[in-house]
């Protein structure tokens, strides 16, 4: 069943030759069309997807159409970084629909920010919303726009 592949042996040699050719031409990711690069980025967690923007100019804005966003920031020491990150991503992301939106963080005194983040997802017709909010300092209510869609 396993090694019966009809073309395995001779092809392996070929593959090595091919690999050398590849190295010589420095054929790399840059050869792939933009739609494929976007596809690859969409398979990454949000943090990793955003990091690709620094790779080079061609990649700078490829992440902006990622359909799934996950923000998990429960470390108090990195609170400011986390807040900035979420705000920037939501601000710079394009207007395409969001499939899943995951948010897990302490609310603290930032209820209005957190609420706005959820609204931003709802406005992009989010299909699945996972929210885990902790440590409220004031009464917190979910955005009205969300109530309207959950009947």
């Amino acid at each position, binding site marked *: 069943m396993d090694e019966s592949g*009809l073309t395995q042996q001779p092809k392996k040699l070929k593959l090595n030759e091919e690999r050398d050719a590849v190295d010589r031409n420095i054929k*790399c990711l840059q050869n*792939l069309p933009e739609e494929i690069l976007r596809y690859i980025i969409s398979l990454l967690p949000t943090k990793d997807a955003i990091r690709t*923007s*620094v*790779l080079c100019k061609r990649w700078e804005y490829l992440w902006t159409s990622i359909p799934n966003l996950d923000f998990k920031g429960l470390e108090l020491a990195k609170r400011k970084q986390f807040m900035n990150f979420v705000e920037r991503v939501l601000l710079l992301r394009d207007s395409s629909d969001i499939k899943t939106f995951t948010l897990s963080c302490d609310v603290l005194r930032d209820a209005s920010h957190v609420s706005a983040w959820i609204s931003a997802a709802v406005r992009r017709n989010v299909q699945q919303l996972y929210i885990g909010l902790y440590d409220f300092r004031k009464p917190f209510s979910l955005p009205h726009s969300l109530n309207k869609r959950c009947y």
Partner: protein
Amino acid sequence: MSNTSENPNPSSSSAKITLKTSDNELFEVEEAVAMKFCTVKQYFEDEKDNDVAARGSSTVIPLPNVHSAVLARLISYCKKLPQSNAVADNHEEEETKKKERKQYGTPGDLVDLISAANYLDFKEGLEFFNQALADHIQNKSVEYVRKFFGIKGDFEPHEEEKYREEYAWAFEGVDED
């Protein structure tokens, strides 16, 4: 040396389709495998409609954008992993899948496989190899990804620095190179 056209499974009487690669090699594959490539399927059906070569085995479908080395790997992938894209529902399964994807290793290979899967409109393959490539980006530093995939950073140092500050959170906790 093994014969490339030998059929290891003689009991199978399913129709065969011959694919011709960019380097003029002929591959005789089972119809079920060939039909996973939508580009081939489309070509095959058009031929059938035209009634030029309805007898499967004599149909030769040219694939001018696919090298034989790449096609061989795609075919062996088709045979080995028929359900490879079923969603992993637990951590262990995900790890097993990651290992499977790792076998398709080097960036040059992956780029070739992805290009071919894209050209052949082979959806499961495209997802699988894209994910295999994404595995080499996840949790990796920018420097690592650039080196691994041969990408030249073309931002001015101050531009890059600015990005790293603005998205500082995304640069936390990546693996050691």
